């Protein structure tokens, strides 16, 4: 075999008929249990004392996780054109594919004759969104994306968790990012 298997714990079946008096006395097990748990305790205590690992609890809305994966599906953003208007052409693809039906779009006529349509209303109900990322995949002009961050995903009631177009729009794509795969939708 080409692969190397590590050394497994290899649990042995412990038949109920083969219990010994030593097992029944339970003394040995207490010793073993104290040994294992205190090993963990002192290892963690030493780490904590030397500032190598802080607590694992994060007070969520105030604190953010620093180690989130860059692929994490977090907050939605609407991508802007260079002049600051949304790149979205109100084609309704994201609203159609959304399994939770949480996107509401109303279209209006755009000033630009080539673009034709733009969203007048673009609401995402964050309290109903299941963060599946299908809207990002469905968009034919790369107008909606998801950031890894989970900040600002909280609200005191469910009506405050409906994000409108301008809340979603405040993000500016960096440098030449709006040129997608050689095609510039501007």
């Amino acid at each position, binding site marked *: 075999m080409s692969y190397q298997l*590590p050394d497994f714990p290899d*649990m042995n079946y412990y038949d109920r008929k083969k219990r010994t008096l030593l097992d029944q006395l339970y003394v*040995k097990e207490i010793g073993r249990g104290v040994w*294992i*748990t205190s090993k963990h305790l002192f290892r963690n205590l030493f780490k904590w004392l030397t500032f190598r690992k802080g607590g694992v609890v994060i007070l969520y809305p105030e604190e953010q996780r620093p180690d989130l994966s860059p692929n994490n599906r977090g907050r939605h953003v609407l991508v802007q054109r260079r002049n600051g208007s949304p790149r979205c052409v109100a084609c309704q693809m994201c609203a159609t594919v959304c399994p939770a039906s949480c996107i509401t779009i109303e279209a209006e006529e755009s000033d630009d004759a080539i673009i034709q349509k733009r969203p007048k209303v673009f609401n995402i109900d964050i309290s109903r969104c299941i963060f*599946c990322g299908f809207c990002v*995949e*469905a968009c034919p002009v790369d107008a909606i994306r998801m950031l890894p961050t989970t900040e600002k995903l909280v609200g005191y009631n469910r009506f405050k968790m409906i994000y409108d177009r301008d809340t979603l729009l405040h993000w500016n794509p960096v440098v030449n990012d709006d040129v997608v*795969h050689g095609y510039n*939708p501007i």
Partner: protein
Amino acid sequence: MAELEIPAKYKIDEVRKRKEILELPIASPGDEPIKINLGPSHPAMHGTIKMIAEMVGETIVNIDVEPGFLHRGFEKMMENHTYPSALPYTDRLNYVTAFINNFGYVATIEKLFGIEITERCAWLRTLFSELSRITDHYTCQAAICSEIGAMTPFLYFMQARDWIWEHFNWATGARQTYSYARIGGLARDIPDDWLDKCKEILKSNIPLLKDIHGLMDKNRIFLDRTQGVGEISQEDAINAGITGPFLRSTGVGYDVRKALPYLKYNEVEWEVPVGKYGDNYDRWFIRNREIEESLKICFQCIEKMPRTGPINSDDYQAHLPYKPEVYQTIEGLINHFKIIIEGPKPPKGTIYHCVEAANGELGFFLVSDGTGTAYRLHVRAPSFMTMGALDKIIIGHQLADIIPIFGSVNMVGGECDR
């Protein structure tokens, strides 16, 4: 209080005869049984399930198990979403093994279409399924430990599980509800160094498992609470339609991965562990052994997997076209719109496909009427079958034994009630 009719086989003398192992002080025959209601939201029950136990003294003489409090209309929702956009719902069946549900669901549709998945995709799906199975078994084992009073192994298991879940986030974008499968492939390729890190994480799980074994294996309190409690015979288990670790703990070596090999399970070496008595301890043992076997499969997958290659099949009838084609060509754009608005249209017909989920055989029965939406989709949920046999294994035990028994059958509400 109204007169309660106790069926003859549940009379205390009969119960005592059937369970000679119990030498419990039972109230004198003729005492009226007391009804005790557990659930649906009881702090000691995981999952929303209601149990009405009839007790004589501390012994349960009759029990009525009522699942269904987590019913969300899964099957109805599948009938009004197109095939791809219904995928996130399958994540929420058994929410600990979302990968296995995802892959089972898309494999059913692929079978209907006749789509062949690529080599690399099949290996990745095998790897993800096994990692998912490991996390599910961790969760179940942790629950058993904490229900018996051992909080430390619970935390060790959770730590090990969290390492794997965090690592999933780097590949899929979510910790738990991945929505990672697509018809004919996967949502995206994994990052470059993902596999090597995965190997390290799995290796670092092994010392933790050793510690847990050290704490639990010969612990008399644990053995007393699990051995001889919740026994079921092979015959009863088969008659109730139970599969998975529960069935294997009674000594039947039925595993869908061996019986009807799918993905790459016939190209890796592993064995099916079986138990002896079908009690709580055997279920614990089987799950531990399965964690080891799954770890073996994972290491083999990582070794044998082709490191490069396509992950999506080039059959365009079901999955979205690649983005450059959508942005640049009109054909790609129309294809994209068609698939999203109407959904991919499989041929008419019915199909059944089953995979081995963490609790047993998870099957999808699909009736297609040729449109982009399922006419009917039924899920054969493994947990639902175990609920049918739960009264058999609980009767005759004490009230306090319900919790470890219920923990070790690992009922997952999302999957059982759909």
